[in-house]
């Protein structure tokens, strides 16, 4: 060996002083350990372990990324980011408008509900947080039993017979449901309601684009905001595998699931109901007439967190089990007859079936589904209903306050905790005015639904929105 360093960057072990010049606090090795290990391997230096990488591709400089931060520096930087400073520079924090001070009437697929403290307390236990996918069931019964409880509660709430152990989110779950319906029916098209979340529809279009699955869109009735049943019946052909609707839909209007199912089933198509606001299930009838339910469970204890990670889940009739994508947890016994749980039916999955798998999905949302499970347990039988009723009451109050302020409800169909309105002026201008009063108004609809005009917006009120905030917002809308 030439020279006295083990690594080309001059920062590693110095053989003369027997000192590692550099330490990283997550790495559990003493300088002597590294030397001893190199000796055991029989190589002179760390770099000799990288000789299989051709020299011309070995990096001989530092990566051009921020220097190593202490824990307190990391925290300072993220406090600045959290305080709305784009650079993360703590010095700019005082001048930044912090969004957490603002009242918000945004929903549209991401709902801010109260998150009981026990959720974060429990999911941060290292045994949940830092465990791997439960492929070794003997030492993963905690995760597995929680998944089984998750599946059971999802079935109960959605009115379906089986559920998987989660999908990435509601948008990808809806797209996977369509692929599933294509496999189940042997048919090849999908009719999607225009009132399904626009981003879910975009994901669906991306997902199926190379599978030759035609997507037809069906509109809504301008009076009710519900799917146009006649247009739907006309759109379904003998090659339509499924109809995809959302309820409550993107406008907040609750669909007539039974009527939709009738129309779909008469033509031999499956009905997929996507649910973006899970809390609605406490007071809105479960979509029992559907064949497949694709639920976004974010509302159940998952932070809105700038859009993810959330928790999708597919629930369906038992007869479609073998075509359902994603991991599934099932009950069994160990060799002594004790009850336990395992991941099961993996012959559907990519690690066994490779290109013939039901989906390429591997990782799911286990930790987030645990948040959801704890949330459902905390609220339980009584609380799910009470919570949903509070949302209903808040939204009813907001609707009437906005109407008094000159806004008009756009649709007559029943709604849960959000609804579409025509504001007295363009939604953009109203929102700009509200922002000046530290209020984030509802989402402007013009971008996706130009036919509803510039004044159209969807407003949401969960149990966390107060009367004072709603009155202030209505006042600002009026003024």
């Amino acid at each position, binding site marked *: 060996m030439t020279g006295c360093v083990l690594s080309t960057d001059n920062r590693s072990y110095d053989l003369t002083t027997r000192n590692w010049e550099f330490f990283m606090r997550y790495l559990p090795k003493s300088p002597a350990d590294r030397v001893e290990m190199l000796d055991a391997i029989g190589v002179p230096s760390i770099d000799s372990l990288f000789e299989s990488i051709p020299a011309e591709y070995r990096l001989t400089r530092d990566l051009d990324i921020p220097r190593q931060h202490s824990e307190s520096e990391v*925290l300072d930087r993220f406090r600045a980011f*959290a305080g709305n400073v784009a650079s993360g520079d703590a010095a700019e924090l005082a001048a930044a408008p912090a*969004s957490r001070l603002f009242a918000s009437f945004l929903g549209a697929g991401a709902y801010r509900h109260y998150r009981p403290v026990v959720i974060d307390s*429990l999911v941060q236990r290292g045994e949940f947080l830092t465990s791997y996918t439960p492929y070794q069931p003997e030492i993963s019964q905690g995760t597995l039993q929680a998944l089984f409880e998750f599946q059971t509660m999802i079935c109960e709430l959605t009115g379906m017979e089986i559920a998987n152990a989660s999908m*990435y989110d509601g948008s990808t779950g809806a797209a996977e449901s369509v692929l599933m319906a294509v496999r189940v029916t042997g048919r090849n098209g999908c009719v999607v309601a225009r009132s399904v979340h626009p981003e879910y529809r975009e994901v669906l279009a991306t*997902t199926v684009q190379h599978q030759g699955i035609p997507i037809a869109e069906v509109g809504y009735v301008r009076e009710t905001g519900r799917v146009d049943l006649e247009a739907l019946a006309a759109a379904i052909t003998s090659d339509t595998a499924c109809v995809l609707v959302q309820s409550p839909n993107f406008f907040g209007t609750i669909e007539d699931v039974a009527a939709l199912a009738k129309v779909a089933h008469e033509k031999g198509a499956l009905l997929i109901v996507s649910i973006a606001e899970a809390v609605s299930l406490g007071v809105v009838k479960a979509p029992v007439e559907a064949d497949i339910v694709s639920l976004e469970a974010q509302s159940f204890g998952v932070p809105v967190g700038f859009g993810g990670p959330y928790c999708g889940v597919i629930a369906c009739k038992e007869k479609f089990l073998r075509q359902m994508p994603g991991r599934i947890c099932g009950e069994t016994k160990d060799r002594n007859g004790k009850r336990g749980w395992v991941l099961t039916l993996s012959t559907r999955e990519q690690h066994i079936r490779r290109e013939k*798998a039901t989906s390429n999905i591997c990782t799911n949302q286990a930790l987030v589904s645990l948040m959801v499970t704890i949330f459902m347990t905390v609220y339980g039988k009584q609380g799910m209903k009470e919570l949903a009723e509070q949302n209903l009451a808040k939204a009813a109050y907001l609707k009437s306050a906005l109407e008094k302020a000159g806004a008009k409800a756009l649709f007559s169909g029943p709604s849960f905790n959000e609804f579409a309105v025509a504001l007295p002026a363009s939604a953009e201008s109203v929102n700009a005015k509200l922002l000046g009063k530290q209020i984030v108004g509802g989402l402007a609809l013009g971008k996706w639904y130009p036919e509803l005009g510039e004044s159209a917006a969807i407003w949401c009120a969960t149990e966390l929105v107060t009367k004072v905030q709603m009155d202030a917002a209505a006042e600002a809308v009026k003024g």
Partner: protein
Amino acid sequence: MSDEKFVGTPRKVTTHVNQNEDLIFEKSSAGKKGYRLAELDVPAVDAAALLGDAVRTDGLGVMPELSEIEIIRHFTRLSTWNYAIDLGMYPLGSCTMKYNPRINEMVARLEGLAEAHPYQPESLSQGALGIMKLLSACLIEITGMDAITLQPAAGAHGEFTGILLARAYHQAQGNPRTKILIPDSAHGTNPATAAVCGYQVANLKSNSEGMVDLAELEKLVTEDVAALMLTNPSTIGVFESDIHKIADILHAKGALLYMDGANMNALCGKTRPGDFGADVMHLNLHKTFSTPHGGGGPGSGPVACKKILEPFLPTPVVVERENGLLGLEFNRPQSVGRVKAWYGNFGMFTRALAYILANGPDGLRQTTEDAVLNANYLRAKLKDTFELPYKAPSLHEVVFSDKLQAKNGVKTGDMGKRLIDYGFHAYTVSFPLVVSGAMMIEPTESESKEELDLLVDALQQIAREAEENPELVQTAPHTTRLQRLDETTAARKPVLRWKAPVAATPLTVDTAAKEW
């Protein structure tokens, strides 16, 4: 105790530090509550009157009713039945089970980030967008690529996105092509991904060293081939030394090199895929960048690519506006479209960036060096105990086989299970498929020498047991709360949800129960 307690699950003496724990539904009692809502400050409404036919009238069936302390105990007890990185080593090859720093969890929960709504105005999202921008810049630098999307939700979702980019690129040249080449050593997600992107899978056989066979590759790469999906280092932990020749062969025919970045933990700070010829790759933030596996997710699978693929990235992308503010750009006519609602698993971006900042360039490099040092140390210590099917130098993981032990009827799966009795998680069993009876070990940088020595001792002891008392290994684990589970029956007669017993008929207490 009433007889009803014996329905379904006879209670038995615990074989664990805490009580046996029933399902949450079996612990529920009518009338208990674990919540209290805030006082309603607006008039209550009549749900039936507002919703009409749409109102829910069933009683929410099996939903549980418990107090807060019972909920805490239930999930805490369940947690103690899990193995976890916080308890010890996961030598799981290809999974990169490293330490999950707690500062990551703390910063991800800061109110201004956790409570940021994805549709809130850009003026209020500068911090969140700033995180995405800085993380993107770091990952582009680490991979040596030109552009990135953070949108994919996990590694397999990233593969899907990456192959969509490749397809859009070829389409823009006039021909999407028909085939994706995939080595036989690849993860199952690779062929599954090719299929969902509308491609046929052409299998590329490895050479006798487990590497890409250049002659074979040359033969297979035609103008029908859209891309080769290559894991580098390969799933046997070996760097494809001919990587640039591989890229050249592909590029000569207009095909692209897709790199599965699952094994980036072997390369970070030491070499960059963009420099050695990769055109597009995904990263697993839950592997290389320390975001938690959480019992199987959430993941996050950013896709980095070369300039030629940038126009096709999913919408939206983070841009800096003329006024200096960060914003989201949606107008990208050549985009493959959106692969997920909003912007990706943002909470994982926060954690990954905290990890990158905590390390800096020197820390990331030393992390990679230690990961490779650890794997090579295990290889040196165990190479006389287990057969080493491929002799090429290992990077971050080493693959042995059960050939020597299989003579006594002890298989890789048995030894993996027996490892549990020694306080470790099993290594990766029977993967990659190119190695019969594979035992794939990836220690990561997070293991001390002491912990590695314990693993070596355990595996050597298990090898001795395989000779002297094979049955002991074949029936392992012996020390866990549950022993081997009947996976066959679970799949044949699936029980996928709990149902309330029809009538509370007391069962006869079985023999095992009497030990209680």
